[in-house]
């Protein structure tokens, strides 16, 4: 059984301009010890989906349907107490900007101790030893426990945030754009750290990222989100090497590789649609270079091969589309369409 399985989850934001369907019937599952990437452009609902798993969603957000099954318990319907018991002990979070997510007025060590004693039930002596162990694990000198967050460099803050996330040996870690705020060299170091720790501790990890190269580097599986829906999901190597959804093909062209960045980058023209009033039918259709009449209807997320599913009417022509998609001109033709 999967450690986490999100089934048909819908989450809406109630705003003054209307109801934004940020997550609209998304499904995703994470096996034990598996690293799953959640990719898409900003505003596609990936962060919202990931944060829903932590149980902390913005005040204006409502879960209107679906399940989040974690270790046999549905977090959507679970009581506050039951859900709270899992927080940080079973499911922890590594934020994008460690600067804003560490409390500026407490020493980093104090913030670690808080979690270890308040949530881990350790006494101070044990907690101190554990804090030192955690810092060693993420490669920060133990003496830096006495520093305040603003005294850390960006990379160190991110490491500290990882240490904080691993403090109570959770089963699942959700990392929201864990390296986006860092410069390239440090990005690589932090990704290596995540990979090493994931293997040593056989963690399950969800990595939210807009950067497909991060997925290629770290993930076993990947789910591609577009406009609140999962449009393609499968083994990472599969999805990246042989994408079936035109959006995935487009994303692949849009990002540099961590390994080889000589490839010419072509952004997908236009922007994701409004989630308040999304297009009927396939939501990517307005920006898709391969759209056909059929795309006015909404495609289901169908299994194409074992463990690989995509929501597109043209999966049958996928091989041909991939060839065309590799040609930069294909994407340039559509320029200005969805803008």
């Amino acid at each position, binding site marked *: 059984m999967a450690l986490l399985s999100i089934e048909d989850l819908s989450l809406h934001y109630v705003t003054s301009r209307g109801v934004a369907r940020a997550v609209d019937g998304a499904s995703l599952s994470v096996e034990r010890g598996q690293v799953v990437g959640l990719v898409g452009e900003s505003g596609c609902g990936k962060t919202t989906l990931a944060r829903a798993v*932590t*149980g*902390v969603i913005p005040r204006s957000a409502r879960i209107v349907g679906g399940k989040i099954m974690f270790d046999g318990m549905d977090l959507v319907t679970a009581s506050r107490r039951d859900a*709270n*018991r*899992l*927080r*940080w*002990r079973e499911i*922890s*979070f590594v*934020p994008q*900007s460690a600067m*804003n*997510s*560490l*409390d*500026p*007025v407490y*020493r980093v060590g104090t913030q670690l101790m*808080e*979690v270890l004693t*308040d*949530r881990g039930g350790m006494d101070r002596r044990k907690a101190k030893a554990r804090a030192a162990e955690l810092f060693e694990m993420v490669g920060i000198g133990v003496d830096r426990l006495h*520093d*305040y967050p*603003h*005294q850390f*460099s960006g990379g160190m803050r991110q490491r500290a945030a990882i240490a904080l996330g691993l403090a109570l040996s959770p089963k699942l870690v959700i990392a929201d754009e864990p390296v986006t705020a860092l410069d390239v060299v440090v990005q690589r170091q932090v990704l290596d750290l995540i990979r090493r720790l994931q293997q040593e501790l056989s963690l399950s990890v969800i990595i939210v990222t807009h950067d497909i190269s991060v997925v290629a580097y770290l993930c076993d599986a990947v789910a591609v989100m577009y406009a609140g829906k999962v449009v393609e999901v499968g083994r990472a190597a599969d999805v990246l090497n042989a994408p079936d959804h035109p959006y995935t093909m487009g994303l692949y062209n849009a990002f540099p590789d961590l390994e080889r960045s000589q490839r010419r980058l072509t952004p997908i023209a236009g922007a994701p649609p409004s989630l308040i009033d999304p297009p009927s039918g396939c939501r990517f259709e307005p920006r898709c270079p391969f759209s056909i009449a059929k795309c006015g209807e909404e495609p289901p997320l169908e299994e194409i091969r074992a463990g690989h599913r995509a929501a597109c009417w043209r999966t049958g022509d996928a091989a041909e589309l991939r060839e065309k998609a590799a040609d930069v001109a294909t994407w340039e033709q559509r320029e200005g369409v969805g803008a």
Partner: protein
Amino acid sequence: MEYIARRVLYTLFVLWAVASILFLMFRLMPGDPRAAFIDNTFTAEQQQLLLVQFGLDQPLYVQYGKYMVNLVQGDLGMSFIYKRPVVEMVMEVLPNSLVLTLTSLIIAYAFGMVAGAFLARMRGTWVEGVTIPVVLATRAAPEFWLGMVFLAIFSFSLGWFPAGGASSAGITYDSFWQQLVSPDYWRHLALPVITLTLYLQGLPLLLMRSNMLEVMEDEFVTMARMKGLSEWSIVMRHAARNALLPVATAFALGVGFSISGNVVIETVFSWPGIGRLLVTAVSSSDYPLAQGAFLFITVVFVVANLIADMLYAVLDPRVSHGSAG
């Protein structure tokens, strides 16, 4: 350290400037400066004596030099009317002002912070809709008018509190400390404190509320929730601790501002403090006393500003602990 040194220097600079302005004001105002403080019923002989006594027969720069030297030595001259050293008179009433101000400020800030944090949680409810205009009205009311209304109701009409002064007729104290612990003193203090507290509580309340609203949206508060910390920890240990920074600064500033604003409240309640001393000195053209009282108020005001700055540095590690890469 360098920051504090700079702030101290700056404070000294302001003090020097204010003292100089005061000197010039009392001597360079249009008209004969003597007219301001020498009654024309005095004989020419008496006038001449006074001129010599205050050094006014000397050139201006000599006067200024003497004035500054005396000031540094803590000598503010003699009261013209009471014939007593100004410093002594000021020191006699300063404790009353400080007791009034600090008591009111502490109550006002304690209440304001709790109420402000509470109102932040009540955001968007009818409680907020009713409370905020009321709080704003207390900020808009002249404090002496609040005092007048309270006097009319609680003192004259209901007879709950004495109508003014700091002690009942016939009561004397051997020391300030004896006075401070006497119930009679506190009975006199009550109404001024209530008035001042009502006037002062609006600022910390509104400040705390808006800070809380802002901090509660901060990512580290969201993180605290994800960690599953208790609501108490989230609100008090993380949100309130951060929202408190500007309020603490406002408190220190408030000491200065309300000492300076005390001139009216002390007058309404005939409270023997430094503000009332200034007003009576100015009214009776007791120039050395007025100058001395004003300088003392300035010192308290400027030093309170200095403390506010330093307090911020102490409370905010981002200032007190420089970044060490």
